[in-house]
């Protein structure tokens, strides 16, 4: 009967549709767990095609917060981890989930704030001083609050400034639990201060009244590390392909490619695999 034919056609169609993506799974690829801020900076669009062309290995980046990215790797769902939170990365290594950590590059954080600058911090060179002024003035401040590298860096800075932010925060401190982009959106609409990575800021289009108020302080430098997920703990990790990526990223070719990435003529990431940070 016509209906039976219809049912068979449907099954065939569905299987066909499912088979197409499954075929994609046959090519050489690795899964890299990284952060939303790195992806949104546009670095991968610039960096990965060079690697793929050279080795024929497709790199699939899943962009999450640093905490989530490391957790994803702990579950064995990634082959390589590429994040920027040294203490969290070292904990990851200590737990046995990673093989070895290689420094790759650094970018910097900047303090962004409203042009009206209620805490009077614009143009300063000292981030700790600026944070103290913001706390004293109870000026609106947006935090990412999502265990990301940026969030951890922000918390470290408050500590260095001598402020127990968990205790001293008031309604001026907005803990949003969001990625860099959404947090910037929130800061823009609230006219608040926010600690951001330069890469996301440069590509961010919804700036409203916000501008860079403090930059260049050494303490704002953000170090990236790359690790191969430990095949001893997660046997299906693509060891050879993942190692190829790690090796390339710290090689002079990879480092040069990183340095070549610019937004509006400005270099975003500074390769430092040779150093021991």
């Amino acid at each position, binding site marked *: 009967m016509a*209906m039976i034919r219809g*049912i068979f056609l*449907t*099954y065939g*169609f*569905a299987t066909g*549709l*499912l088979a*197409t*993506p*499954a075929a*994609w*799974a046959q090519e050489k690829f690795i*899964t890299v767990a990284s952060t*939303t801020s790195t992806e*949104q900076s546009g670095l*991968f*669009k610039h960096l990965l095609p060079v690697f793929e062309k050279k080795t024929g290995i497709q790199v*699939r*980046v*899943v*962009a999450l917060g640093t905490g989530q990215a490391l957790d994803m790797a*702990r*579950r*064995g*769902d990634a082959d390589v981890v590429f994040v920027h939170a040294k203490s969290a990365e070292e904990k990851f290594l200590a737990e046995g989930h990673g093989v070895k950590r290689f420094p790759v590059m650094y970018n910097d954080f900047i303090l962004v704030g409203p042009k009206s600058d209620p805490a009077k911090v614009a143009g300063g060179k000292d981030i700790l001083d600026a944070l103290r002024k913001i706390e004293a003035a109870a000026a609106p401040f947006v935090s990412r609050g999502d265990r990301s590298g940026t969030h951890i860096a922000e918390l470290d800075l408050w500590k260095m400034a001598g402020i127990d932010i968990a205790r001293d925060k008031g309604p001026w401190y907005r803990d949003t639990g*969001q*990625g*860099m*982009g*959404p947090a*910037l*959106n929130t800061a*823009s609409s609230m006219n608040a201060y926010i600690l951001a990575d330069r890469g*996301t800021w440069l*590509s*961010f*289009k*919804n*700036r409203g009244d916000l501008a860079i108020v403090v930059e260049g302080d050494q303490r704002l430098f953000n170090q990236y590390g790359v690790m191969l997920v430990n095949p001893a703990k*997660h046997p*299906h990790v693509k060891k050879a392909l993942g190692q190829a990526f790690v090796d390339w990223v710290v090689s002079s070719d990879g480092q040069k490619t990183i340095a070549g990435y610019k937004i509006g003529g400005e270099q975003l990431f500074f390769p430092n695999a040779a150093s021991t940070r």
Partner: protein
Amino acid sequence: MGDILLALSEAARLIGRFDANLVAIVALSLEVSLAAVVIATVVGLPVGAVIGVTRFRGRQTLIAVLNGLMGLPPVVVGLLVYLLLSRAGPLGQLGLLFTPVAMVIAQAILVAPIIAALSRQVIEDAWREYEEQLRSLGAGPVASALTLIWDTRFSIVTIVLAGFGRAAAEVGAVIIVGGNIDGVTRVMTTAIALETSKGDLPLALGLGIILVSLVLAINAAAQWVKETAQRRYG
């Protein structure tokens, strides 16, 4: 207002350029949602039909559960499927995480209860009208269910379209199980989420306009097919 006008011009620019990236994203969105709806219908429609025409203990409870499942939050389904497909999970060996197949699975799980619950209601209503006649003619439960599915086909098409709309519109499930990987698992809704979080609101809105237009076009086409068929078969 300015943002919306910008968005409209962004949408026009993207379509006019036939941006290769956009075409790939649109194609993947349609493939994933269509595959999900097909699977959800193949699973959900017979379930709804059988529940509609049979009587058994616990039927009312089952119906309540089925109706409730229509409201499954996509992000919860995404999380559950993620845990299932993760390497650390029971089905990790399949290596399906972060592939379009995972997205199809998640969306099928979301849509199947909608198809089952709504078709159950439609077929149960029809069964009230048809039951005596079909039983008199000698149709058993399976034959009756099939006959009713065919006789209520216009309502069923509307239900399938509702399922498709749900699949095409959701982002919570596919972003978790797909990972929004550029070129592999990025679909319209996850692309919109990404552009929004990057602050490129006109682009995000432009993509949104394209998505809505596509879904509207599909619905219009289906409506035309229904009207034509209805005129021929009453």
